[in-house]
Structure formats: C-alpha cells, structure tokens
C-alpha cells in the first residue's frame, strides 16, 4: 500500500518539450499498455456483468462450496451463491467506490493544494500546515474510527469518507507544483490580461500539471479500492452490498480457506492487487512522460 510517487520532486517544464499528443506517447510505453489493459479488463467485466453471468449475485440457489466447473466458472460460496456473479457485480461496487473516492480526494487535493499556493501569505501557511497535519495523521485508523461511528452506511458515504481522509498527499504535491508555476511568465501574462483568479488557477495552471493530477488520481483510486476492501473486510462497511471487500468478509466468515474454497477467497483479493498494479503501471508511464530521465532508463 506504500506507493509513493516521485513526481513531487521532479519539476517539469512542459513548455520546452515537443508536444506529440501525450495520449499517444502514453500508449507507446509498454507498461502503460499493460496497465491500461488490466484496468480496462476489469472495467469491462464490471460493465458487462449481466452479460457475463445469468445469475443474481445474491441468490442462494446452488449447492454450497462447489468447486469451479462448467456451470459455475468460479464455483459457489458457502451460502450457495455463484462466485463469478458476485465477482463481476462486486467489481462494479469496488471500482465505483474506489474511483469515486479517488475523484473526491483529487478534487479536494486540487483545491487544498492550489488555492493556498496561489493566494500565498497567511492563508497558505494555515492551509498547508493543516494539510501537513492531515498527512501525518494515520489514515486507516481514522477511517476505522469514523467507520465505527457511522457503522452501517452506503457505499457512497464510504467513498466520500475515504476521499475526505486521503487527499493530503495530493494537496502537498500540487501545492509545490503550483508554487513553481505561479510565477511563470504565462501566468503573469494571464494576470495582465485581466483574467480572474479562478480562470488562472483552473485554465492556465491546472492544465500544465495534468500529469501530476492524473498520477495522483490513480494512486487515490488505488488507495480508495484498498481502503474500501479493508473496511468491508472488517465488517464496517455495508456487508449486504456485493463488492470485493464484502466477498472477502463473507469468505472469512464462511471459513473459505479452511473449507478449501480458494475460488471464493482468491479472486477478489487477487483482483484488488491486479487493479492496483494496473494503476501503478499506468502511473509509471505518466511519470515517465513527465520525467525524460526515467524514460531513457526503461
């Protein structure tokens, strides 16, 4: 879970670089292709859930703890549910919550990082100190405590809470980048052009740190998926929803491993790790894109 991007330390000067469509350049990197492939695969599974499986993920129609066979490609759970159905519908929840949490964290990170750097002065001092405090307050324990207070809750709230506890790193990275961009000539020119502050922040500065934002978004999504799975696994989320986290919760409750039902326990955990890997690989490529030295090396 300790994934730290080094983009923070690399100052990027996009103006000196040829701009051959960043998206095309992104896909030139084999790592990016693999990463995107993994991600797209799971998104596709989630979208096509009803096509992939005819079964309702909740219905307990089948013989419990069946090993994978032609009828149940991933076997059945201890409660006689089809694991594949749970898995593909669970992908929907897990990806949605993860991505929503990532978006929330990124949105807060952008505001809490860029505004103070742009405004400067006492406002910057107060906000960036606050950011640094949130950064060092351990996230998961805080999440568990909040989870304990709101106990039962929907996936949406979980996503928001995860987002609201996980924005600080991005805010810090974006703040330092904004500080370096805010004195650029083109920003000064925009100010001379009479552009209002929000235009300068969101239209002039933000597009020039998109790679940072995208990298941050990917890590936030990864964090979101892991955090959601952890909460659900501990039974602090909505245990009656179908997600990879609740699958692991029920698999643990149903002693899946002791029963030898690896097909129940392994797919959700493995998929979380794979999705995370996909995000990291894509992020590698974004990193490389904005840092030519890393490009040479890979």
């Amino acid at each position: 879970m300790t994934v730290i991007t080094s983009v923070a330390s690399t100052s990027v000067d996009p103006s000196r670089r040829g701009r051959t469509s960043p998206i095309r350049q992104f896909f030139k990197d084999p790592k990016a292709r693999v990463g995107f492939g993994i991600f797209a695969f799971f998104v596709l599974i989630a979208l096509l859930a009803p096509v992939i499986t005819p079964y309702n993920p909740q219905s307990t129609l089948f013989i419990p703890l069946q090993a994978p066979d032609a009828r149940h490609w991933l076997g059945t759970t201890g409660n006689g549910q089809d694991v594949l159905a749970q898995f593909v519908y669970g992908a929907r929840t897990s990806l949605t919550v993860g991505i929503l949490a990532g978006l929330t964290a990124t949105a807060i990170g952008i505001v809490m990082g860029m505004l103070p750097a742009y405004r400067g002065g006492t406002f910057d001092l107060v906000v960036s100190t606050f950011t640094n405090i949130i950064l060092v307050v351990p996230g998961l324990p805080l999440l568990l405590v909040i989870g304990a207070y709101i106990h039962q809750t929907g996936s949406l709230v979980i996503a928001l809470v995860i987002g609201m506890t996980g924005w600080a790193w991005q805010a810090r990275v974006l703040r330092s980048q904004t500080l370096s961009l805010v004195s650029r000539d083109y920003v000064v020119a925009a100010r001379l052009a009479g552009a209002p502050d929000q235009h300068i922040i969101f239209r002039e500065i933000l597009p020039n740190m998109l790679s940072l934002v995208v990298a941050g978004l990917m890590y936030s999504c990864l964090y979101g998926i892991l955090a959601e799975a952890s909460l659900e696994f501990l039974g602090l989320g909505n245990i009656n929803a179908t997600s990879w986290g609740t699958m692991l919760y029920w698999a643990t409750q149903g002693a899946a491993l002791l029963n030898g039902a690896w097909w129940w326990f392994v797919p959700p955990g493995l998929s979380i790790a794979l999705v995370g890997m996909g995000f990291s690989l894509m992020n590698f490529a974004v990193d490389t894109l904005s840092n030519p030295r890393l490009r040479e090396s890979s």
Partner: protein
Amino acid sequence: MSEPIEVLRAENLVVRFPVGGRGRWIVPVDNINLTIHQAESVGIVGESGSGKTTLGRTLVRILEPAKGRLHWHTHDVAHIRGRALRHYHAAVQMVFQDPFASLNPARTVFDQVALPVRCHRRMSGAAQADRVESLLDQVGLSPARDLREKYPHELSGGQRQRVAIARALAADPQIIVADEPVSMLDVSIRAGILQLLTELKEQLALSFVFITHDLASARYFSTRIGVMYAGQLVEMATAADITRRPLHPYTRLLMAASPGSGMKAPLPETTQGSPDLSAQRRGCPFAPRCPLVMDRCRQATVEFRWLADQHGVACLRSEE
C-alpha cells in the same frame, strides 16, 4: 511642438526582496525616478542583474514597490489591487523576454490572444473572433485562420513572439513594456520583430518601455535611454545625446562593448562578478569596477542630478 503629455511617472521607486530570512534584503530597484510620455519610447539599458527587468515588472505592477510612487496620469497606482489593478493592466501591457515561457503550452493561439480581448475589452462571440483575427493580422501572422487553433509548440520562436505581441495589443494599451523582446530569438528574426514594434509604435501612438542589455538596439528603437546599474539609474538622456556624450563611466563601458562603436575605453578591472544589490552596500555601486574610482566614491551616497537638456547622471566625477 506642444508639451509632451506625461503618461506614467515613477518617483523614488524602491523594490526589494527578502533573501535567506534573518531580515536581509536585496534592492533591485533603488530609488528610481522615471517619466514616460505619450507615444514615446524609453530604452532601459543595463547588464543582467542590474534590475532593469524588475523595474519593468514594477512599472506594469506585476510587482509592488516597497517605497515611492507610481503615477498613472493623475492616479497613484503603486499599491492598487483588485479591480483598479485590473483596470491599470488594461492600459499597461508587457511583452516578455522568452516567448517559450510566456505562452501557455496548454492553450491555443486563439485562447491566449482572446483572453485579454474577453477580460479587458469585454468582447465575446463573433466580435471577439474578429478582433483576434485582426490582431494576428496586425502582428504579421497571416493568414490568421491557419494559426488560431495551433499550440505554441507548433510555432517558431518569431511566430510565438508575434503572438505575445498580439496578446499585449489585445487590451488596447497605452504603454507596452517590452522586456528584451528579441534577445531569445535567432539573429535572423530579430530585425523583423523590431521592425514590427517600430511600426506599431508609429501606427498606434503607443508609449514603449524597451528593456535591453544592448545599447545599440536601444538606440535604434528609443527616443530616450536610461542606463541602469545595480538597481540604480546611473544616466538618462536622449538617444542621440547619450551616444554622443556619455557621462557615466558605466555608460562608456557599454558604448565600448556595443558593436560598431567608435568609442574606445580602457577595459575596467573587474573585482566583483555581479553588481552588489544588497541593502547594506555603501557608496557608488559601480565603484568596485570603475576605472575612474576615487576614495570618496566608496563612502559617499551618489545623487542623480540633472545637468542640462534632459541629461542626468549619478557620478561624483560629473560634479567636478
């Protein structure tokens, strides 16, 4: 010829920056007085580190002076903010040194030129598009249609600087501060840009502040020239006067260094790399490099004095 109309006047302008904490300051603009008249071009000449860029940025109020006044017609704009500052910016624009850095790499030519049209001139839709097109035409970027959707990295250096000039013109300013507008360009392109600026000056009755390290191009472009050293204005005169009769040892040095100059001055001993800008310095800042230095120069404060015919200088030798 009637009395020239005064547009902008700096009085005892001081700009300073803190360095390394502990209350230490540098003073890149130190007590400068300067007047700019309508449709006049003033050259500011100095080596790098002389504070000329800081002065330029202060004149357009990107920077806020620590002391002194900045009169825009009858208003003091030294410390205005918000809407008043925005209003001032509509009248005082800047062309930056580096056309690579001054254009946002993420926005199209149209976006960048349209921004001041929209914000300062409150135009939108077809009017805005027409205006942008005519601006691009005006700076010699035609046909404008081919260029408007391009990104800066798709343009040559000269084209970029023309876009930057178009952007500066877009607000309909009265003054343009051009900070070494050609120094980053290929020699072959420089003449074209200078030609463009000259044409604009004449067509639009614009005032120009032309910042350069090169006395020759200042002479070519400006009616009056100020010479800066270590944050101070050391000499100010008409372009013709300063070429004919440079008074300050530093001006002479610059003359000698500029190509095609008949002047030959002894090469100064350099005891110091770059001018000392710190607030604690004493005496004439040029003293360490001055071939004509006297003991007094290292101690006494040197005042800028007007001699005759709008010719001023800050040198103890000139008092003799």
